[in-house]
């Protein structure tokens, strides 16, 4: 129910006074309300829940944490290696 999926903003429009955007989810395109992420620009990834963008994905944070996690094992392997 709280499922929310990251999608890429293509372009913007205004519908009934609301800021909307076309957002691509791996090629599937949907209309999304952008009122809660007013700073998002075309090309940004936004997290979408029931037709509303709730958050703009932070690319730097995503990169940083993923690198840290990838390195986890390398440190372990080094420690294991030195102990052997």
């Amino acid at each position, binding site marked *: *129910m*709280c*499922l*929310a*999926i*990251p999608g*890429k903003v293509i372009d913007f429009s205004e519908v*009934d*006074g*609301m800021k909307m955007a076309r957002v691509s*989810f*791996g090629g599937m395109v*949907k209309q999304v*309300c952008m*009122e*809660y*992420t*007013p700073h998002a620009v075309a090309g940004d*990834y936004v*997290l979408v*829940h*029931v*037709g*509303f963008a*709730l*958050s703009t*994905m*932070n*690319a730097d*944070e*995503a990169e940083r*944490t*993923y690198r840290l*996690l*990838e390195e*986890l*094992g390398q440190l*372990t392997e080094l420690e294991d290696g030195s102990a052997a």
Partner: protein
Amino acid sequence: MKYVDEYRDQEVAQKIAGEIRKTVTRPWVLMEVCGGQTHSIVKYGIDHLLPEEVELVHGPGCPVCVTSLEMIDKAHRIALRPDVIFCSFGDMLRVPGSEVDLLIVKSRGADIRVVYSPLDCLKIAKANPDKKVVFFGIGFETTAPANAMAVWQAKQEGIRNFYLLVSHVLVPPVMSAILQSPVNRVQAFLGPGHVCAVMGYREYEPISARYKVPIVITGFEPIDLLEGVLKTVQQLEAGRFDVENQYSRVITREGNIAAQKLINMVFEVCDRKWRGVGSIPKSGYKLQYDFRDHDAERVFEVEEIDTQESSLCISGLVLKGVKKPHECTAFGKECTPEHPLGATMVSSEGACAAYYAYRRHGIAARQSRS
């Protein structure tokens, strides 16, 4: 898909699992709050990657499951009116009320429509000015901005034939209720990532401090969940109890201020009944007085409906993390997703339904051996 596929990398998952094994020295009980997390954990077998000292119990965070029986009976009463088009998210259709579900109500002639977004209901309302269009507004804080916007927009545009049947629930009060329970086993939480995308995580800090429990706000992909467990276990082993943010690519401490602002303009906090749990003070949202003309409960006069739950099922204990689904004697026998006895079997995100979908064969084999 970007931001999804890389968080399912098996090699990285194994590395984190290895780190958890290195960190843990004694038994710990962790609860994942959100039903979406429960679904991922069971689907990907995350719990099977963990050392036996780390037990994951499944929390109450499935709004479909915890929507009270009487609210579903109210929905049925409204949907059966000939002047109503009743709109809902698809996963509410099969949830049984005290007698039937919305699919059966539909087969009896009600005009029931599945929508993707609450905004779809405004289009339906405009296209059907002679009908009353009602949306079943369930959900946690994650869904509140969408429902708030639908009501706000209806008022702005003067769409007077749109109504919201509000059954919103809030996460922090139920976490406190679990921690206050005399049978509580939970020592730490994986916090609900998408709820915090809206609300931020400031309101979890007093809970963590008061009950001395670590709360790690966690995402939904396998690697998110494993990293959430790692951060939680690191805190437990070190005797720390902080609120930490594993899901930093999505979440900030402040959350989405624009969304919170509209929620606070449209909704106010109220007491709310939870299926399988009972009434919890200040654990839900209702519409503010200014939006009373869009309040389905008031307009359709169903406020007096009061339904008692069956005492047969143990879903209340499952929702509080006291019991696991397979510890129920009715699991997979009298109680299945087709014929659910209680809250946790009614939606695919309920703990019992997730076990039924991904684990029932193993459970049946163990039961026949014992």
